[in-house]
């Protein structure tokens, strides 16, 4: 199915949600694993997003302007004795896309509410 230009799919929305959650916790930037962990913690399955799926979605979000990224300073990574991390930060465009996705989902939730449940 062809997606609408500018629209985001479920995983991309989850990534943007995770970025916002982390931002609210005082982390304006997050690396791939932390985003996968945050998404996993928020789901029932508690499973981490697959490597390929995660990095493809991050790539697409960045190309769409919803995220921006930078490499961690090499000195810091060397000090911690690990490879450098790539940090992602949600942009204003990303926040807008997320708001639109939430707004678009609201009527769907109302339409799909179980029988007998009144949605006001």
């Amino acid at each position, binding site marked *: 199915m062809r997606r609408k230009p500018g629209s985001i799919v479920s995983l991309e929305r989850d990534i943007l949600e995770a970025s916002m959650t982390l931002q609210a916790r005082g982390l304006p930037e997050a*690396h*791939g*694993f*932390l985003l*996968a*962990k945050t998404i996993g913690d928020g789901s029932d399955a508690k*499973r*981490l*997003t*697959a*490597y*390929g*799926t*995660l*990095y*493809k*979605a991050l*790539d*697409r979000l*960045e*190309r*769409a*302007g919803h995220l*921006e*990224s*930078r*490499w961690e300073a090499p000195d810091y*990574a*060397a000090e*911690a*004795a*690990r*490879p*450098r*991390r*790539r940090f992602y930060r949600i942009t204003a465009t990303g926040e807008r896309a997320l708001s639109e996705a939430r707004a678009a989902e609201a009527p769907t939730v109302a339409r799909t509410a179980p029988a007998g449940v009144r949605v006001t």
Partner: protein
Amino acid sequence: MTASRLPGRRGDGSAAVRGWVGLYTLGLPAPMRTRRRGEVAGDLADETMDAIRHGDRSGLFRQRMVRLPLGVPADLSWRLVDAPPVARRLYGRTPWVPLTRWTLALVGAVALISAGGLAIVTLPVLTGQARPDLWPGWGPVGFAIGSLLVLSGILASVFWPRLGAAFVVPGAVVGLLAAPWLWGGWLLAVIAGAARTYQAAVDADRPLPPGGAW
């Protein structure tokens, strides 16, 4: 201990992940290649540290063996469909034409079907369990040759569309003569070869996507 050594430990699955990433990023411009490899190396290191923090290092292998294969379709789609136009835009035009999602699906389906057909016919012969009474005459040989030509051609068409089609069409003809009841499969192979060739021919006019910060 160096930074590059940290994420890997024998038996934790990190070598398999790094090996796969190294494989599918082959042929990309160095900045794109090193970025994807670096990102996944960082992810592996963080995953390892997280497992150590939670005292569950023994579960790492299992977790990675789930995360790795589930992401393979996305990796292939990124490598064959998304990355080439970005590489072309940022690092100059390359002679290779990326697949579209449709041609990738067609090529993948034909590759799987022809490989499966080839295996079904040749494995009993190789293991001495073939039953000539079930399919007499030159049929199995023709079917195997046709499948092999189609498989080689369809894989070659990913990189050299016209050369690939030059293998697919005769392969489909031989296969059709040997196994006419499988006409749908041979037709699908020809359609896939033709679609890939056509797509490569018209690609020059395709608009290029915006690129990320590499």
